[in-house]
């Protein structure tokens, strides 16, 4: 059978043209890179939008944006960062590139479906970008698109064609996400190599697995909600629009809908979504920290268990986005308890990362710097979740900059730090060349200082009561005196964007002239390091390696070197890992 597979591999390699190899490729590695590079490009777009609206907020008197343009910019920034950067970079880029390499599979379970998922994703960008060029511009209703604001064209300039295109884009994106998650779940469950039991999987794979399950179960709900809203907009139905509204002097003809239904459906997706984008980085960061601390991840079973606990609880917390929405107060009680419980597995993960560092042998590669930054940001952002999840305390904080600071730290920039750590770590595997570490450090310091300076002061704005999505705060006496802080935040945000440009330059430069990488430049233990950099089509020349031990056997007493790769048979005189 192996021989037959080899023959097939050989035949396919020879059949490839430029188009099937780089464009309509069915190779998981190419598809992963397509996803990753598309996401990074979209990050520049989403980041540029943020630079523009931050300029508006720092110097409102200059008026760089008009009010509707401001709303369009913040709405598109959120949409792009969530749907077109974080989600596809992780459950697309890293998931595709890493899953088969890390579990010992030659490709994904369904390579054609995999190719389809990328191209459906690329298609979903078209209506989104088109919405910049239609009358009224892109949506104004925020990335959460609450109806009736998003349902009624009279309600805002962006609630016209721009909103319709947004819904279309998101619905198409949901299809792509489903095709992807189905593939990751199937591949992880059935295509692991010999010896790769579930509890020998690297935590990156666990993070991707749990995230894919969440995506599979929640994106359909978002898609259904989006289609219902499209019906309300285009077909005269009233799922979300109640009777008796008057907008812009015009009596609205809808009857019988309920806007809270949208919030429930949206957040049933929306809360698991934040874990969809944070679980894979949690895994990446665990891999990177173990590698550069030369130590096993402390408490591996607890790390897996906490990922599963977070995954399950994430389905039961959506109502904490709705404490002041007018839903029944009794529901608030339940959602507060489940939300606060999520702090427990999150704390376990943090302490386990710290315990992994304790008495390690730490090497500060750029990947490691970003992984350590992740831990700091996750804590800085996560702890205020204890305020926001506690229903009564959320009342004054809801929809203020306290929330903006919280989620940007805990799942926005933390996830981005996970992505950056992953890029510096796996770039040599992806392209056969290392990224420049000097430029990497410039990128890291700009980003870290920029992120702290941007998002920590947002907590202070939130404490002062600054509410979200306001184009000009000078009408509010309790906010106008805080303009110097706004300037500070904006200048810090510029540093983050500058850091992003350094990364882009580093990637282009290193692709062309980076230092060539051997198969295992970081002396790692997991299977992707057992093959060439970059790996050949179908990942390994010859047999797929067999797995003999857990993923993090670093500094095992008695071993001749400070790491025991998963694929090496047991050397004599060394006690067995798990």
């Amino acid at each position: 059978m192996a021989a037959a597979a080899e023959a097939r591999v050989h035949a396919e390699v020879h059949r490839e043209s430029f188009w099937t190899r780089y464009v309509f490729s069915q190779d998981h590695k190419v598809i992963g890179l397509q996803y990753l590079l598309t996401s990074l490009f979209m990050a520049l777009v989403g980041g540029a939008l943020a630079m523009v609206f931050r300029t508006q907020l720092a110097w409102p008197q200059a008026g760089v944006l008009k009010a509707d343009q401001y709303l369009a910019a913040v709405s598109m920034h959120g949409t792009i960062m969530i749907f077109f950067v974080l989600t596809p970079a992780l459950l697309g880029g890293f998931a595709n590139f890493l899953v088969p390499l890390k579990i010992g599979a030659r490709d994904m379970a369904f390579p054609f479906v995999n190719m389809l998922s990328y191209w459906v994703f690329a298609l979903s960008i078209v209506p989104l970008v088109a919405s910049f060029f239609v009358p009224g511009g892109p949506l104004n209703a925020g990335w959460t698109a609450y109806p009736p604001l998003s349902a009624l064209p009279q309600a805002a300039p962006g609630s016209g064609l721009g909103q319709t295109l947004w819904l279309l884009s998101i619905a198409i994106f949901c299809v792509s996400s489903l095709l992807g998650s189905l593939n990751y779940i199937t591949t992880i469950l059935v295509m692991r190599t010999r010896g790769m039991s579930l509890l020998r999987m690297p935590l990156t794979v666990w993070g991707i697995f749990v995230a894919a399950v969440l995506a599979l179960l929640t994106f359909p709900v978002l898609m259904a909600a989006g289609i219902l809203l499209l019906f309300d907009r285009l077909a005269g139905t009233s799922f979300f629009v109640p009777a008796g509204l008057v907008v812009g002097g015009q009596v609205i003809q809808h009857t019988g809908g309920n806007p809270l239904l949208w919030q429930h459906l949206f957040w049933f997706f929306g809360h698991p979504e934040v874990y969809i984008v944070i679980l894979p980085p949690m895994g990446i960061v665990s891999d990177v920290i173990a590698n550069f601390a030369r130590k096993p991840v402390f408490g591996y079973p607890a790390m897996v268990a906490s990922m599963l606990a977070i995954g399950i609880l994430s389905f039961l917390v959506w109502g904490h986005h709705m404490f002041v929405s007018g839903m029944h107060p009794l529901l608030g009680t339940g959602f507060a308890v489940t939300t606060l419980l999520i702090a427990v597995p999150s704390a376990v993960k943090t302490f386990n990362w710290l315990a992994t560092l304790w008495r390690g042998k730490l090497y500060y590669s750029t990947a490691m710097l970003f992984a350590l930054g992740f831990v700091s940001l996750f804590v800085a952002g996560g702890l205020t979740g204890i305020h926001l999840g506690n229903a009564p305390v959320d009342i004054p904080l809801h929809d203020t900059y306290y929330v903006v600071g919280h989620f940007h730290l805990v799942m926005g920039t933390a996830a981005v730090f996970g992505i950056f750590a992953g890029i510096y770590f796996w770039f040599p595997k992806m392209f056969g060349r290392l990224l420049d570490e000097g430029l990497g450090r410039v990128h890291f310091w700009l980003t870290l200082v920029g992120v702290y300076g941007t998002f920590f002061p947002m907590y202070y704005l939130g404490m002062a009561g600054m509410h979200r999505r306001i184009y000009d705060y000078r009408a509010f006496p309790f906010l106008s005196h805080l303009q110097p802080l706004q300037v500070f935040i904006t200048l810090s945000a510029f540093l983050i964007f500058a850091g992003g440009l350094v990364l882009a330059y580093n990637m282009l430069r290193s692709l062309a002239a980076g230092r060539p990488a051997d198969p295992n430049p970081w002396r790692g233990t997991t299977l992707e390091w057992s093959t060439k950099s970059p790996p050949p089509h179908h990942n390994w020349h010859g047999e797929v390696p067999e797995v003999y031990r857990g993923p993090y056997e670093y500094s095992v007493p008695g071993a001749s070197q400070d790491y025991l790769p998963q694929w090496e048979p047991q050397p004599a005189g060394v006690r067995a890992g798990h």
Partner: protein
Amino acid sequence: MEATPQAPSPLEETQRSGLALGLVVWVFSLLGVLGALYARWAWTPHSVTVEGASIQHLFDVILAIILVAFVLVHLLLGYFIVRYRARGSESALYFPHHTALEVTYTAVPAVVMVALSVAGILLWSRVHAAPPPDAFVVEVRGEQFGWSARYPGPDGKLGRVDNRIQRPFNVDPEDPAGRDDVTSPEIYLVVNRPNRILLRTRDVQHSFWVPAFRLKKDLLPGATTELVLTPTQRGEFDLACAELCGVGHYTMAGKVRVVTQQEFDRWLRQQGRR
């Protein structure tokens, strides 16, 4: 597949000093804490409602807990980064598990979270307790992009409204309860007694947010929501719309005036005379 180390690998050539990062982690956590304390002390409005004061108190308790946790984690993180940098041939400790340690740091957060949940639930139910029947009643209406209010007249009842009726505040003329209602752009509340604020929107979502009350509530299209509170201080307080409601969202600023019962009664009589 050969994994024997060759000449110096990129791993061995990476930077060894964690001093800069360790220091930045410490300095950041110090500045973060100082900033938070300053923002709490100088910028957070002093609560002028009974409910808001309780909420602020729980906020402060949690703030103390999370600042301690924040500093603790960052002290350790910074210390480990500086202390455990790779040095010479010293190797890392093989330390994959420690059951007692893991159970401890699962149990401690769990106990804290359960305690905070209980405190939160108790306060939540107090904040949402049914208002006494003699509470002061006012209806606040939001629309793109402004606020207005309606007060029951001598009958103590607010009449039915229908947004489609072209009359002030869309009050239904068929409903006798509405004939003596007083409508005004001014929002008044009465100090030192429970106030029941009924919230209604004509168009899209809005949110009634008075920072000094430490309270907010959404206005939900198709329904009436309510906020019950007891102001403890007379004065004029900033009102803002905290839920994105369209292009003029940022202009939805207003004032809430908390007055004594006598002051309110006098004002209401003047309205009736107009």
